[in-house]
């Protein structure tokens, strides 16, 4: 009998091992839901699969009688727009500041402490300030995502750039490169895969900030909707929405991984341990 440490599941076994906990969880839910509905057919806390499917149909495939729009569709579009804008601005700022702080000691000395100080402020605590200054519109929601992600990402990228071996920077200079060329051709390409990696880790917080901002002040959006229907205990809407948000998050993560693998094959040497 090999030690547990050395047992490596492969192929079908691996897949099965991954599926078991998920199936168990689903079964647990179904069992609990059935039990509650046996006691009280009008139970709203653990809705049946049928009830949720019905809500998916009305929210996701039918135009609302009043607004003439499909709620799930307009919510998704609104939320993704805010998310994309916030993440794009955060990524661009990170690239510019992270690169210069990581590569140039002068910039590190002047901006490093400031970024470190800003990074410890809890972003949600800044939300009222953003609402006051930027109003309740789109800008404050995008700004919250930006404020929440950027300091962490800048620090991460700057430390990655600072970790580029000094030998490479010296070598580049002995080949005739100036600061600008070292930044663009040595530091930037090596920073990009790390930026994508750090974006992947920031997607979770980005959703948190988006949903928080939408919950407090919005008239459309995924976060707005689930907080709206919470008033009616509409778990049959909330649960499919949460599943949909998770699916979107998984797809974004997968897209970032694929982007990194195709654009920067050198950054992904074959993994040794499965």
């Amino acid at each position: 009998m090999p030690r547990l440490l050395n047992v490596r599941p492969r192929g079908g076994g691996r897949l099965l091992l991954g599926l078991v906990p998920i199936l168990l969880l689903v079964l647990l839910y179904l069992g609990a839901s059935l039990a509650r509905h046996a006691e009280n057919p009008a139970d709203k806390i653990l809705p049946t699969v049928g009830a949720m499917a019905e809500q998916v149909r009305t929210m996701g495939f039918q135009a609302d009688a009043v607004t003439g729009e499909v709620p799930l569709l307009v919510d998704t579009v609104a939320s993704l727009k805010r998310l994309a804008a916030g993440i794009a601005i955060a990524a661009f700022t990170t690239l510019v500041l992270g690169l210069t702080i990581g590569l140039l000691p002068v910039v590190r000395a002047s901006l490093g402490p400031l970024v470190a100080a800003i990074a410890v402020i809890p972003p949600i605590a800044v939300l009222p300030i953003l609402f006051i200054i930027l109003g309740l519109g789109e800008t404050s929601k995008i700004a919250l995502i930006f404020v929440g992600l950027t300091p962490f990402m800048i620090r991460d990228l700057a430390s990655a750039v600072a970790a580029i071996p000094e030998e490479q920077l010296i070598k580049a200079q002995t080949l005739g490169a100036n600061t600008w060329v070292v930044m663009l051709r040595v530091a930037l390409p090596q920073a990009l895969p790390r930026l994508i990696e750090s974006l992947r880790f920031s997607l979770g917080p980005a959703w948190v900030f988006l949903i928080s901002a939408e919950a407090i002040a919005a008239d459309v959006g995924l976060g707005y909707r689930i907080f709206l229907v919470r008033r009616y205990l509409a778990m049959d809407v909330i649960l499919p929405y949460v599943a949909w948000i998770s699916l979107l998050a998984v797809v974004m993560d997968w897209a970032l991984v694929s982007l990194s693998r195709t654009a920067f094959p050198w950054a992904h040497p074959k993994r040794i341990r499965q």
Partner: protein
Amino acid sequence: MNVLSFRDVWVEYGDKIILEKVTLDVAEGAFVSIVGPSGAGKSTFLRLVLGQEAPSRGRIYLDGEPLCPEPGPDRGVVFQRYSVFPHMTVLKNVMFGVQCNGRKREARAEAAEMLRLVGLGDYLDVYPAALSGGMQQRLAIAQALITHPRILLLDEPFGALDPGVKLDMHELITGLWREKGLTILMVTHDIKEAFKLGTRVIAIDKRRRDPQAPHRYGSTAVYDFPLDKPNAGARRELEKLVAAEAAEAA
């Protein structure tokens, strides 16, 4: 003709003296090996030549001009590790030097030719991570030579390689040195290697020691052995002399 000259060079950090009174000249076409115990200041010596560090006292001259205290294209370097760019293919790694010096059109052909010379002609489009340690060092050498530096600095270049690979690399660097008439400064802790490759071996160590304050005395060149090995550079000098004499006679 001296490529590199040290004139009474000192390196001090506070009251800690690393190098003291280093005065020496490196002639064109020489292959100088620098040996010494670890911590004696071999690396500091190389950092001075690279321009990563400036001397606290004294002067360093490259081709008679005061040395620019920043790394520049007149000095090529191969480190023990990390001196190739992991995000560029083998070919791009070498093209980089040509492009930085503004000759974009010739870059590809020159780089491919240089890579053929170091035995990497069949690996132009792979990334360095796919190369063995020895091949990565071949790449680093090609990369350094593509800009035709006045002096090539090698910092323990073969220290991390297997013995067999090391021998191949010795052959490669000796061949390139002869053929191209290079001036090479190599820091190594391997004394055998130093004598095998060098035309001159310089040992750096402390001349005096104070057991109560070991940092009070710095290292300097304690031994300087010239060995007799003509290369293309020396041969060319000789040919020039012969031609000049012939012209005078005529």
